[in-house]
């Protein structure tokens, strides 16, 4: 009789990578709902186009590489990239922007490095940065949140589709700046004055209209993933703490050179999406808990620096990519202390 010869252990926990990816997608639901509520159909269209484009790109490259297409598509990792990219891009972006982004993420940032698990950079963030640099106008055209529109109206599904596929200018009627944009463009005023003057701030519950809810929704999704033990608290918490500390440090009591309130930094732009869905990407981040604290803090600090002193209103993508570069280096010097060793050692030490 042929007995199976296998290496121990002979029993396994039944949660696989595809399930974990699926949980991540599920956890984006609150954020997706908030985005859709505030900006309309655009986000859904983004996600759908991105999903089709990423899966097609992935299948195409897998075929070229002679891999089992179905086996790898089933790991849901391409889908996660699609969802994150779709959520990060401005709603009502032309379809080709989304397609170029999706193809860049999968082909350039992921498959060229060897596919899942081997990419040094976060694919969605590579795509975002490539698009932002290549198509700055399309990539910075956001519409105003629904409650700031004069009649409380959003583009209809038809209008949305024609904006996305026909490049119609219907959307121009709805465009509006994001809070971080507004803040950056009023550098001469006191923080107090900006918050009083601008409807995007003075109509808000906490700090910025609409965006505060988007960020809180992503925070909720992130807490769910934390509870599900998909990732550890180290990287996101350290990133948020670093961002908060930076904004306290450079608040400058609200003067005209102030970087803005900590609350604005936490609840505007891509802060929470970044903290819980991008920074936590295990593939491109540091591995040890200690390393993840440094990695997260680096991202938090870089976000603040680029937002306040850089040329771009938001900076999650840049900050994440810069720290992706640093992750292997961080890994070498943040080994945990192993049982029976007196201290943590570096991975680059030489024997004797």
């Amino acid at each position: 009789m042929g007995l199976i010869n296998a290496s121990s252990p002979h029993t396994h926990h039944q949660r696989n990578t595809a399930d974990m990816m699926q949980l991540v997608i599920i956890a984006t639901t609150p954020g997706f709902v908030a985005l859709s509520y505030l900006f309309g159909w655009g986000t859904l269209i983004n996600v759908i186009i991105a999903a089709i484009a990423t899966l097609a790109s992935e299948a195409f490259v897998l075929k070229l590489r002679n891999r089992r297409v179905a086996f790898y598509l089933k790991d849901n990792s391409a889908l996660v990239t699609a969802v994150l990219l779709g959520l990060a891009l401005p709603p009502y972006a032309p379809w080709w922007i989304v397609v170029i982004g999706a193809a860049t993420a999968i082909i350039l940032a992921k498959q060229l490095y060897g596919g899942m698990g081997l990419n040094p950079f976060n694919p969605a963030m590579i795509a975002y940065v490539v698009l932002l640099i290549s198509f700055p106008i399309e990539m910075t055209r956001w519409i105003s949140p629904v409650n700031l529109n004069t009649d409380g109206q959003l583009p209809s599904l038809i209008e949305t589709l024609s904006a996305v596929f026909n490049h119609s200018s219907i959307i121009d009627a709805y465009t509006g700046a994001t809070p971080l944009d507004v803040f950056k463009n009023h550098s001469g005023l006191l923080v107090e004055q900006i918050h009083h003057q601008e409807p995007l701030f003075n109509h808000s519950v906490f700090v910025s209209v609409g965006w505060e809810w988007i960020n809180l929704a992503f925070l909720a999704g992130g807490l769910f993933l934390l509870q599900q033990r998909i990732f550890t608290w180290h990287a996101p918490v350290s990133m948020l703490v670093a961002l908060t500390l930076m904004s306290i440090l450079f608040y400058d009591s609200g003067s005209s050179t102030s970087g803005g309130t900590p609350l604005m930094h936490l609840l505007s732009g891509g802060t929470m999406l970044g903290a819980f869905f991008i920074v936590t990407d295990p593939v491109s981040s540091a591995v040890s808990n200690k390393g993840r604290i440094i990695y997260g803090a680096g991202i938090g600090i870089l976000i603040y620096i680029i937002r306040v002193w850089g040329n771009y209103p938001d900076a999650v993508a840049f900050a994440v990519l810069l720290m992706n570069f640093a992750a292997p280096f961080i890994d070498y010097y943040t080994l945990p202390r192993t049982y029976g060793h007196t201290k943590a050692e570096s991975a680059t030490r030489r024997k004797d």
Partner: protein
Amino acid sequence: MKTSVKTLRLENNIIAKASGEFHGGIYPPENKQQSMTLPVGSLPIPDELIFPLNQHMGAPAEPIVSVGDNVLGGQKIAEAVGMFSATIHASSSGTVSAIEERILPHPSGMSGLCIVIQTDGKHQHIDFQTCDDYLEQEPTELIEKIREAGVTGLGGAGFPTAVKLKPPANDIINTLILNGTECEPYITADHSLMLYHAEEVIASAKLLSHILGNPEHVLIGVEDNKSDAIQALASALKNSAMNNIQIMTFPTKYPSGGEKQLIQLLTGKEVPSGAIPASLGIVMQNVGTAVAAYRAVALGQPLTSRITTLVGEALTTQRNYQVLLGTPIEFALQQAGFDASNNERLIMGGPMMGFTLKELTTPIIKSTNCIIAPSKKELPSPPPAQECIRCGLCSEVCPVSLLPQQLYWYAKAEDYERAQNYNLFDCIECGACSYVCSSNIPLVQYYRATKGSIRQQEQEKIKSDHARQRFEFRQRRFAKAEAEKIAKREARKKAAAKAKQLQAEKLARNPEANKDSTPKCDPVTEAIARVKAKENDPAAQQARLERSINSAKNRMTKLQEKLANAEHDKKNPISAQIKQVEVRLQNAEKQLAEFTSSEVVDDKPTIQDAASSAIEKAKANTAALANMSEKEKLEKQLTSLKQRLKKAHQRLADAEQENNEHLDAFKNSVTKLEQKLKDTQTQLSASTKADKYGLN
């Protein structure tokens, strides 16, 4: 049915909660109840018992029985070889039917020498020497008894117990731990032992404590999922006089039963990397091992049987059995109602660290605590592995705080240095990382393979270092010899050059005097010349010839005498000899005559002789030239050419007078020499010019 540990009365400090904690750990399904529904059963005696000679850590035992011998149960059949080894005893009576290679219960599926006993079914055994006053005896004596009984670790590794009970002399033992954790799923062998033989466990704690010099703390560590066993131990302990024994409980978590993890749980200390627990003053024994040691000392029983859990859905009866060591696994499984058609793999040990068996014919040995015969659905093979996404679940559960995802990365890349820097060798191969891996990567397999490769590489490195040292030494030796040779050669060359120079100088100073003398620089040519001269010396030649004539004449007279005295039949060979001598004598006389007549005629050197001596001289001069500077060379050449020309002229004149047949040749050489002389002069002038301008 089960009482929670929280409801246990913590009375008289008998039961305490462990305060320590270790990093990570997992909570796999326990699957322990199915084998605990029935008490420990017993199996009939199989027809054949198989005793592998190396079922323990260390050197294989040496058989002391031969095929055909009758043996009794408890009789020693193999002797330990050295300290790290263990004796083996027959577990039932019968006849030794073979001592041969059989497949061993080992992860590799390798075979090894086994003693095979055909049982007689009578189950007779030797008389066991019981002992009541063992607590009065010397520890060394008791350790000897334990060694003699072949007790080895029953928990898995099979380390000889006697060795473990004799810690290094400079480590003072202050803590004895009996390990009753049994953290692996499915296994309940130790659980049953503690439940049904609690008194013996306590007695064994007493015994081991005595052997180790009564350490301060004696702890029995039991996971809180075995509350009935904890109760049994507590009541046994209450009835005993021992008050320094404490039962320690802790939450069920895998791998609490690992030696290092249990030490951390119970004492809060960590065994330093690469050290043994004794360096912390701790000795740990599995409860089963302790009881085996107790039975060896108090009852005089060698280790011939143990409790083994037979479990898995491919069996109709899942329970613990007291099995005779050497029982073939197939026999044991059949007794438990094994359904082979519903089984794909057999695991010896637990599902986390056990190994799969390749053959059903392998026997149960001292360290076999469990055999799992799962149904096809029960422990399915994992789905195909995916890429690691570095989710970090593995490092969350690692009980020794490693980064398994990084180890995997470097193991796969065969970057052994990095893997070691990530402390690969601190990995205890508990399998927690593989268990939680969401990409189903067989991590432990990678680590084992990498450890093996590194060990092999280190062995090879030692070997190659050795070879390299030898090679380098040899090279040095050769180089030294070569250098010596070169130095000698140089010295000789220098001496030769000097001699040549001297000769040349002499020649330059007094060319006429040295005209015909052969160069003195070469000892070989000199020697040859001497011998030749001797040979050519007419007086010596004549003497030689005369000598040989004399000896021939002598021989002739002797032979003639012999011929006269000899018998008839031997006359023929002697007369032949005489004939030979006569011929020789005649030859010699003829030669002598020729020699004396030619002596007068041939006394002058021929033209050829003169030519060869001239060649010799030229050779010597060119050799001397090689060691001079360009200018000197030229000058030297010039003088010699002049001389040669002068001589050639003279010779030409002589030849013209004599009307010699070589006249043309002489003329030719004169013109040649004149030409050469002219060339050399121009060269010399050019050289002096260059010298002036410092070009040379």
